[in-house]
């Protein structure tokens, strides 16, 4: 049980958090042939774009309604209209996905109404579905934006009352899963003879592949046809507490029950997933996963020497924090400092004394005396100042290669995380090597010895 502390300081120093619209746009990037749009000033989209480009090292389709001072005051109807028309004619996407920003939310643009007006005015737009989600920058954080966007996608695209397809299930991954994680989960589900539909599917769009053509929209991800078929699934898997509202929304619309996995990193967490899949499908757990389970057990044993008693400071969004804090705790670490970005029911249950909704300054303070810093790439300066190793987790990861392929899910993903962090502890051993001054005697002992000598004289 953790005490949850809210920020009391005026300025966030070295922010950990990123905004809702960016999280929403990130979700839309998992839709095939989609053009995400931020309804705001150019800068909103540009910053988000640069951050995602640095993280994935890929071209990121992300448009803007390019609001300026005048259009903001007058209302953004014209800009949204022009943006939608331009995108439809130039990029010809299957889906236009719009999120609001702090600017347009402050003004109070009613984008739902705008879209109705625009649709009436331009019947030709009927061939291009448009999804809209309200994501003010000043509320919540990245993972909230993601979840809200997925809810909007379900609301707009998934039909109610479809004929059930007995082996088809829905997967709603949280934003803390990488494209590699989604890929792994899909493979696990398929191995039970089930047909997964993933929403949104970053493994198709941002998995860093070479493509034959160039497109201004996303290439790969959940297709419209797949999204529209999700009502036929017999169940839904959601990963991460952030996805609970989405899973509930899906259940309401389709009537299919959902199961939520709070995390899929860790031995028991994956046991639960496989047991559930086996029960649902009637297929015994395939030998491949049994083998990987035993490999993970072995990895945990080999690695625990280096984790035991280590003090770790983690800065991450609630679901990622939950995932890493629990794994590290299970390996024998002590979570000395836990910093997160936004509210979540998980915070109180975190395996730490307290969780601060704070920034990297809080993390740096709390990480003093720790053996490891875990956070996204912006933590690197803190780690340098503290002279402790820095395990990069979360988005953005701009100073390392392979963000898209970082696997944390499944027995295999868990094993990889354990090895990677364990290797950091190992590499750091030489810093901890003893010196002749490592074990000084305290003053009291030296005084006792001196007194003994003096009393003889």
């Amino acid at each position, binding site marked *: 049980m953790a005490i949850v502390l809210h920020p009391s300081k005026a300025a966030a120093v070295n922010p950990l958090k990123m905004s809702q619209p960016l999280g929403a746009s990130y979700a839309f990037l998992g839709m095939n042939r989609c053009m995400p749009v931020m309804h705001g000033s150019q800068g909103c989209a540009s910053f988000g774009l640069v951050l995602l480009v640095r993280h994935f090292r890929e071209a990121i389709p992300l448009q803007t309604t390019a609001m300026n001072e005048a259009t903001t005051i007058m209302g953004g109807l014209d800009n949204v209209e022009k943006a939608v028309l331009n995108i439809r004619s130039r990029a010809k996407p299957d889906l236009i996905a719009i999120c609001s920003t702090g600017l347009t939310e402050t003004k109070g643009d009613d984008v739902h109404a705008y879209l109705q007006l625009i649709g009436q005015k331009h019947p030709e737009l009927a061939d291009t579905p448009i999804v809209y989600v309200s994501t003010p920058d000043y509320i919540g954080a990245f993972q909230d934006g993601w979840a809200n966007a997925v809810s909007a996608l379900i609301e707009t695209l998934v039909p109610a009352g479809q004929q059930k397809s007995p082996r088809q299930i829905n997967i709603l991954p949280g934003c803390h899963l990488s494209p590699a994680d989604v890929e792994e989960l899909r493979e696990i589900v398929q191995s039970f003879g089930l047909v997964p539909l993933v929403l949104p599917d970053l493994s198709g769009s941002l998995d860093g592949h070479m493509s034959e053509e160039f497109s201004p929209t996303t290439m790969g991800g959940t297709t419209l046809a797949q999204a529209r078929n999700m009502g036929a699934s017999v169940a839904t898997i959601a990963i991460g507490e952030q996805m609970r509202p989405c899973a509930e929304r899906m259940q309401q619309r389709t009537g299919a029950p959902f199961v939520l996995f709070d995390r899929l990193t860790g031995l028991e967490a994956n046991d639960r997933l496989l047991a559930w899949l086996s029960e649902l499908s009637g297929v015994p757990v395939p030998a491949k996963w049994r083998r990987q389970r035993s490999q993970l057990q072995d990895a*945990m044993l080999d690695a625990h020497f280096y984790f035991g008693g280590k003090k770790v400071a983690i800065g991450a969004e609630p679901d990622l924090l939950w995932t890493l804090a629990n794994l590290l705790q299970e390996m*024998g670490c002590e979570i000395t400092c836990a910093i997160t970005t936004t509210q979540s029911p998980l915070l109180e249950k975190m395996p730490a004394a307290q969780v601060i909704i704070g920034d990297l300054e809080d993390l740096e303070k709390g990480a003093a005396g720790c053996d490891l810093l875990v956070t996204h790439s912006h933590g690197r300066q803190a780690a340098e100042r503290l002279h402790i190793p820095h395990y990069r987790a979360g988005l953005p990861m701009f100073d390392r290669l392979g963000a898209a392929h970082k696997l944390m899910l499944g027995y295999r993903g868990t094993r990889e995380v354990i090895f990677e962090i364990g290797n950091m502890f190992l590499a750091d051993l030489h810093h901890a090597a003893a010196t002749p001054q490592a074990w000084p005697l305290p003053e009291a002992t030296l005084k006792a010895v001196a007194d003994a000598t003096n009393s003889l004289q």
Partner: protein
Amino acid sequence: MILTAKVQDVFNEPGCDKNQGKSEKERKKGCSKQLAPGAAAGGCAFDGAKIALQPIVDVAHLVHGPIACEGNSWDNRHALSSGPLTFRTGFTTDISELDVIYGGEKRLYKAIKQIIEQYDPPAVFVYQTCVTALIGDDIEVVCKAASAKFGKPVIPVQAPGFAGVKNLGNKLAGEALLDYVIGTAEPDFTTPYDINIIGEYNLSGELWQVKPLLDAMGVRVLACISGDARYREIAYSHRAKAAMMVCSKAMINVARKMEERYQIPYFEGSFYGIGDMSDSLREIARLLVRQGAPEAILARTEALIRAEEARAWERIEPYRQRLQGKRVLLITGGVKSWSVVAALQEIGIEIVGTSVKKSTKEDKDRIKEIMGDEAHMIDDMPPREMYKMLKEARADIMLSGGRSQFVALKAKMPWMDINQERHHAFAGYEGMVTLVKEIDKTLHNPVWAQVRKAAPWDGTCA
């Protein structure tokens, strides 16, 4: 002296009761048991020699042999240095097929030349190995020639692997020091408080857990043979007033022969365990006084022991309840079996078994003394038996060397390294606090509950 004669000489050890208890004929056979092919474990004589001398930090250790001897084994121990790091560089002649045919002496000579030119160490230690011994490379002659040519000590270490086991290698390494190093230099000054510590390798910095205690007593370590040692220190170590022999019988020949040649009395002691540490400090003080040091050191020592024992117990106390009644299976060699047994019993840990495979008769007597007649002494426990014992949960944790770690881990039982590959220092009062902390950390790691859990789709324990 040729190798067989040297080995004979080493086997004739008046300082060893067990050795002296044997008949003339038995003594000739040596003190190491014949190894059973197909059922042997443990290092060779070369390994033992390297272990004993490698901690001399400022010299170059050159292994004359094929790549296996050094290439497969270097940089695998945690002897620490407070200064030079030359000892951590792996040097080997890496002899080729042609060297085997034509002899490797020239290559060895060139290797010594290269090392002296490039690294300029105060000395080079040259280790003989099986292949080069077999083809008849005379490293003593090469070392002598190189030494004359380059004006630096080049020390031959005659301990090829096939000469015997690790323990013999330790002793042969000691012989090299006695023959070529000890007594070849003079210290700048001496004090009545100068001691040698023999058989302490400063693994993970253990010497530094003890040294502050000696500093507080006013005792100077003239030379540690060989942890964190400089070549010169060993060269002038014959001027010490007393010596402590740490690692049981590993270097008893060095201690005894230094007593014979230089009248340096020695005692056998241990830095492991609170009581043993105190006993060792007392004995050092007592020996020094016997050698003429002022008696005030005795009071200083008692004051130090009182203060540090109290401080250690205070720091251990929080763990007593958490560890009380935990059962430990101790698989290790020689001195560690009794010194660690005593230390663990001090905090209420139950020893369900201890290995005595490498222990001497005295070691076994000590164990009996500490554990009573109930002592579960295990002479030679095959891994399968260890596994069974752990799997059946007749022990809560195994403390052993790295070789048997996987026996414990595959049985999903806690294991801790107390041998030379370990990363933690367990010497002195500090070390016991660390040992207890580490046992607690290992035993209570949540990983055990995790890995012992059966998969939900298997009803039975995985």
